[in-house]
């Protein structure tokens, strides 16, 4: 009998939601608004590169990308299922959502692993 994955996926959703809640506001504010708009001095390429290259930073960034992606996947899947009543597409929706999260995480992981 297949063990249902729902408790595991819900845990990813929960932890991802907590990571996003605690860290995304400040990161989005700096990276998406303050630095591009020039409100605050953005770190230079060399500084940022050295910061990111540190092994702990790589791990931090991987978690920062992948867990919130799975948070979105789980939440969006249920929103489509309930909100738009797309019951007949439930398997497709699940594959698209978790698949996208997986691909995004894999891309981040690959980039962080191979960064030199």
């Amino acid at each position, binding site marked *: 009998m297949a063990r249902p994955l729902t408790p595991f996926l819900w845990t990813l959703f929960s932890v991802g939601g907590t990571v996003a809640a605690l860290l995304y506001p400040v990161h989005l504010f*700096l*990276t*998406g608004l303050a630095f*591009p708009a020039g409100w*605050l001095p953005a770190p230079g390429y060399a500084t940022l590169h050295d910061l990111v290259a540190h092994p702990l930073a790589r791990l931090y960034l991987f978690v920062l990308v992948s867990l919130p992606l799975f948070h*979105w996947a789980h939440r969006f899947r249920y929103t489509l299922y309930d909100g738009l009543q797309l019951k007949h597409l439930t398997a497709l929706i699940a594959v698209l959502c978790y698949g996208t999260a997986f691909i995004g995480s894999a*891309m981040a992981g690959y*980039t962080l692993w191979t960064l030199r």
Partner: protein
Amino acid sequence: MSAGAHYTPYHPKWYRRRVSVWWWLESRSYTGFVLRELSSVAVAFFAVVLVALLRALARGPEAYARFQALLASPLVLALSAVAFLFVVFHAVTWFNLAPTAMVVRLRGKRVPDAVIVGSNYLAWALLSAAVAFILLKG
């Protein structure tokens, strides 16, 4: 209710109203709920921005500069602003709901909700300050 009672789930004379696909517009609470759930799209948006940022960083200074220019373009800035509002909305609703999901008992007594919520906001403030410090000190 006797053990042998048999209730037919389908009864032709009982009236069943179909739930409209627009059910979430029928009350402010429901709409607020769906907006809260859709805040996850803003979360995904920023995750994608982060992936793109890392890839640009890995490719070298020119790619990184081009990506910075893209982030500074009016359309992306506008999207980021909207996403920022939704991400904050996510954080606030998340922390406010924390005590419902997490019941902490100390010495048999339940820790008050306000303490749980307050601790979450405190952690949020401290972590945000730490990240800002690291990224701004140059």
